[in-house]
């Protein structure tokens, strides 16, 4: 078996990003953690190295700095084998309905910025002929709902982008995984009262994403029950759906 190649985590501070990093590190992959204020991830870096005996490097990264994205990639110590994008911003639906700057920020953070950076990696992977891209989208993108449609519509865009990317690269040896988590117990959802049976731990995402990459899965819902829940939600007739509050 060849030595596992490096895995880049965009949004390396997020609970999900961290869990995914640990899961890949446990399999012997060197890790590149990218985040805003990356230097403050030093404790995380050391922890990962201690636990898994792999090399872990830190990289300054602001996804919204679109002009800087290409330079960011070029500055990495090596072009990663796998890129996982965990960047996202939930926002506050009620406030964002009234503050368009904030709404734009949510849309850009969940769609434009993640899509662009993965697009840049896609081009480089295509040239190299290998690589896997993992985008963390959300079930929120499966249907717009009153409670989170700003975030949800951006995730919908991201989901569609990933699907197109997968289609484009399928015959080029590049694989794209779309991850659509339901509820995950992270700092994004801290303080919310999430139903236990529908909520995954970040560690579970880590495990499932590694599995999905290894088995070249296309779209995963993490907790299988969510596939069913969303199937139902997607199929409620609009005339009925518009009057519900789910």
């Amino acid at each position, binding site marked *: 078996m060849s030595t596992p190649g490096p895995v880049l985590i965009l949004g390396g501070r997020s609970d999900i990003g961290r869990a995914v990093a640990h899961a890949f590190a446990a399999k012997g992959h060197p890790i590149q953690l990218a985040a805003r204020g990356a230097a403050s991830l030093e*404790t*995380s870096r*050391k*922890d990962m190295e201690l*636990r*898994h005996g792999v090399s872990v490097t830190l990289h300054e990264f602001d996804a919204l700095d679109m002009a800087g994205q290409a330079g960011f990639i070029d500055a990495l110590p090596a072009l990663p084998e796998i890129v996982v994008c965990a960047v996202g911003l939930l926002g506050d639906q009620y406030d964002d309905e009234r503050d368009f700057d904030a709404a734009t920020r949510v849309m850009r953070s969940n769609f434009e910025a993640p899509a662009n950076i993965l697009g840049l990696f896609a081009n480089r992977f295509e040239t190299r002929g290998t690589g896997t891209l993992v985008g963390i989208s959300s079930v929120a993108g499966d249907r717009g709902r009153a409670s989170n449609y700003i975030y949800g519509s951006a995730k919908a865009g991201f989901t569609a982008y990933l699907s197109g990317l997968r289609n484009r690269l399928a015959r080029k040896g590049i694989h794209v995984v779309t991850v659509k988590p339901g509820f995950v117990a992270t700092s994004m959802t801290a303080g919310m009262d999430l139903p236990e049976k529908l909520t995954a731990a970040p560690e579970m995402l880590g495990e499932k994403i590694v599995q999905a990459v290894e088995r070249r899965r296309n779209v995963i819902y993490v907790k299988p029950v969510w596939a069913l829940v969303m199937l139902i939600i997607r199929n409620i007739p609009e005339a009925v759906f518009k009057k519900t509050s789910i």
Partner: protein
Amino acid sequence: MMLSGWGRFPRIDCQVTRPLTEDALRAQVAKGGLIARGNGRAYGDSALSPGNTVDMRGFRHMLAFDAATGVLTVEAGVLLGDVISAFLPRGWFPPVTPGTKFVTIGGMIAADVHGKNHHKHGSFGQFVDWIDVMGADGAVTRCSRHENPELFGWTLGGMGLTGVILRAAFRLTRVETAWIRQTMIPAPDLDAAMAAFEASGDATYSVAWIDCLRLGDGLGRSLVMLGEHATFAELKLPEKRDPLLAPKRRRLTVPFDLPGFLLNGATLRAFNALYYNQGARNAGESLVDWDSYFYPLDAILGWNRSYGRKGFAQFQCALPLASSRQGLQALLKAIAAAGMGSFLAVLKRFGPQDSRFSFPMEGYTLALDFPVNRGTLALLDRLDRITLDHGGRFYLAKDSRMRAETLRAADPRVAGFLEMRGADARAETFTSAQSKRLTL
């Protein structure tokens, strides 16, 4: 949210926060009435505070490891199981471990846990070089046997009531393999079991499963299990190829609460007879992987649900050596006569222990659990009485229902603990449902 310890009794509505930084933790400390919570494996109400329960699992980083000395430095919320996953493959094992690996290092220090090697190596605290503790004023104090020894001493076994443990450095033990050489000794009664313990003081690990439902001749019949870390030379193929790797065990999950009636005198008696006879047939030596040896119950996730919805209560006492035989006999008689007991009752020889507030004392310890109902609560009061009459004391990490007077009668060290807590506003700042109940 509704929260409980591992015994699922009592259940209390608690405000829970999960700080990720020292500043966020300091803000919680400033509110007072705080208790630190690790992985919730204490059985009762030690890690519950209605107004301010702080989940410490956000402090989850391993910080440093010195391969020359085996000293590992971690944040308090790191799980013991993660320490094993990371370091056993490199030939290191925790120096002391409780019967589950799903505990945090902070929780292990706060309860100053003991393992099957207590008679030989003492409690976990013996292997702790230093800890960082956040006090009532939010300041963090490094303490050890040399630096702030008072705070260090009271915090080991202090059940989170002296402050919040943030970081710790402790020494891992070198091992050659992931396997334990186990020797099983069937003991037809209590005297035989105690004789087996007394004869095996050199064994690294010793523990007994005890049948607590036998009366008369077979009172206290036990399976005494001794263990040694197997050396490389003691392994055979195929284990020899990967000496530090043990097979992954299958996991079972108890998905829902079993109806309480499944556990009654008859099913227990049948189980115990089966278990003893099976053990007696397997007397002698065998090689057991580390996970099955130290953590048999961890393979059944959520086994605490097998007691039904009302939960269960643990009873664990320690008796001084001189009165152990009499005390154990009295306890076992009371339990057997009541016809109530558990699948898992554990007897263990403790070695000497010299510490401020830790549970162990030289002698014997008996631990078992009961489903919570009026009958068992009355029985537990009787067991408290017997323990007191024989000069014993109680393990706070297991307690959920003891009376404040009982604790005081059992433990003259309470006065010193209160005095320590009285200084520096610790008494108001750090409180748990247990500390309120026991007026600590």
